[in-house]
């Protein structure tokens, strides 16, 4: 295989990794700060994609950029509504109850999506500026792929700044460490939880929005993405954003390489990757034992 085609494959892997990172980062933050494994996170991703398709089909292709902002914000609002109505009631309950609650929300949102958008799959056209490919030597890279990778990097940087330099970020990190202590120090933990969950939903929605032009948008998106997202989060270690980045790259690479080498076994690779990682490091690459 030539260097160019390898490079193209790598870019494809990084694109997958990028989108997975955006989604997984939200999932892992919610888990880290609130100890909730949110199955409905996949629903938020799907809603992001659907919202983009609705906005673009209503207002034309130029509205894509607007939709990249609007869709995540709408999804974030939806997330906060879910948090206030459902999640608040299960914080004190056991893990199974919490899992079932988020699974129930997943089911409800899935059904509402069919009602609202119908069962037909949709497509979102790539915006003109970002369509086409860039030539570098003998290889051609889809421009949109580069955009996705760039967006993921921007999100990564933004989260890093948020967690390191802002009050909200510090509070989130403190909650990941010890939320009881946080409450004792006077922080409004309820509000913090709502905001963290909203942030998670925002990221999921943005992930769905960014990836919308790359795939057909249908009502199976939520189930498909949530498993991959959980695998990334577990490989990276629950609660670690850096872990989500590394996990996303591992999964992205495995998926790309898997399709190259043995297409019929490709979907199995990510599960194998997770099993292997957990055998070596039972709490994930960057995770700590107390998280689980």
């Amino acid at each position, binding site marked *: 295989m030539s260097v160019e085609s390898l490079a193209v494959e790598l870019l494809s892997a990084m694109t997958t990794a990028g989108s997975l990172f955006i989604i997984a980062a939200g999932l892992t933050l919610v888990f880290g700060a609130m100890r909730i494994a949110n199955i409905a996170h996949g629903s938020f991703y799907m809603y992001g994609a659907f919202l983009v398709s609705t906005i673009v089909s209503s207002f034309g292709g130029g509205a894509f950029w607007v939709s990249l902002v609007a869709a995540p914000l709408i999804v974030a609002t939806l997330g906060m509504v879910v948090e206030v109505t459902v999640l608040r009631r*299960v914080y004190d309950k056991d893990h*199974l109850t919490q899992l079932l609650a988020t699974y129930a*929300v997943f089911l*409800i949102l899935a*059904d509402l999506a069919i009602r609202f958008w119908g069962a037909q799959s949709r497509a979102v056209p790539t915006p003109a500026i970002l369509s086409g490919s860039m030539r570098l030597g003998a290889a051609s890279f889809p421009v949109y792929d580069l955009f996705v990778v760039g967006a993921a990097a921007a999100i990564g940087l933004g989260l890093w700044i948020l967690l390191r330099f802002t009050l909200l970020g510090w509070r989130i990190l403190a909650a990941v460490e010890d939320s009881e202590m946080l409450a004792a120090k006077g922080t409004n933990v309820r509000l913090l939880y709502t905001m963290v969950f909203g942030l998670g939903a925002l990221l999921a929605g943005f992930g769905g929005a960014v990836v919308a032009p790359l795939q057909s948008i249908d009502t199976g998106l939520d189930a498909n993405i949530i498993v991959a997202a959980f695998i990334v989060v577990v490989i990276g270690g629950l609660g670690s954003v850096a872990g989500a980045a590394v996990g996303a790259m591992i999964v992205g690479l495995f998926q790309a390489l898997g399709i190259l080498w043995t297409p019929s076994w490709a979907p199995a690779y990510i599960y*194998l990757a997770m*099993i292997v990682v*957990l055998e070596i490091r*039972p709490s994930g690459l960057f995770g700590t034992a107390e998280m689980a």
Partner: protein
Amino acid sequence: MEPTRLPDNSSQRPGPERRYGAARAWLARAASVNWEMARDAAPVGAPVRGPAIPEAPAHRSAGAPMAEAWPTTYALAVFAVGALAAFVASRVLSPVWLLELQHVAALALFAVATNLLVGYGGLVSFGQAAYYGLGAYTIALAWLHFKAPFWPSFIATPLVGAVSAFAVGLVALRTRKLYFALLTLAFAQLFYTVAQQQYDITNGATGIFGVAVPAVLMDPQVGFFFVFVAAALAMLLLWKITVSPFGLTLRAIRENRARAQSVGVNVFRHELLAFVLAGAFSAFAGGLFIIHDQSAYPELLDWTKSGEPIFMLVLGGMNSFLGPALGALVYQISHEIIVQHLKDWQLVLGLVVLAIVLFMPDGIVGLFSAKRWRRWFARPQASGPNPG
């Protein structure tokens, strides 16, 4: 080192050695124990044996008393009644109903087997469908590739389930809680992927249809009775396991892993055994599914299928042995009805599950706990099943 013998409390002994006497004593105890225990709390200020101590102040425990496990004769009686009811039903109900109830019976066993892990063992596995599907695929593949007769494959299903559960459990049981749930899910998805992709072996996404099932079982009446009795026998066996020393140890592990370990229990081995048992019985349920449907397809292995027994046990009540079976009945019947008339099955299911986890943590069975009915289904405590 012999413990010193203290005065004999023979009123609390279960009875003489002769079986008849023992059985009678069991019945007497089972009948009496609830009423007495339910009525009294520990008397305040009761003296404590041993050297003289100052007056006992009023902070003796007035704790919640618990009923004892059912005697085996009760369970056998329930089984007999159930078999009789099934026989009557097979004569009375229409073939459509009988076929549907076959499916329910298989799912009920699947749910009860899953509850051994989740309710009794405290191990939430999101990959039990792997074994259910494997059971079905065992029979289907044996028929497809080797034209194997039905009965040997049918009997082999628990073995297949046990072996695969053993392999998965060795890996998955080193982790805890969420990691465990996701690992078991990953293994199930692995099996699903293999089933879907390996077209040559498994017929891929289409699945295997028209599996040969003995003609006598194809008759709705006979088929239903057989499946029901087979599932009921399997559940009786499972019940026996829950009231055995192993069941007690498993519950203790669920309650406090570290303490169980410090008392001398090899926790990993016991959890692995529970995992293997759940896998074996789930695979058997998958074999029963083949009698109902004569087909095996990848969706039987999918993680969303793994969610079904979990819903059933939450719906029916995971605190009692038969709760999940009741949940399976309600779930499946509602599913059929709702899917035919509305399109919003997921919405209904989501809302119901939400309602249950928020307001009715003991499931349907818990609804009866206010009345005397509780003795027939549930154990009267907060959560976590105890034998019954």
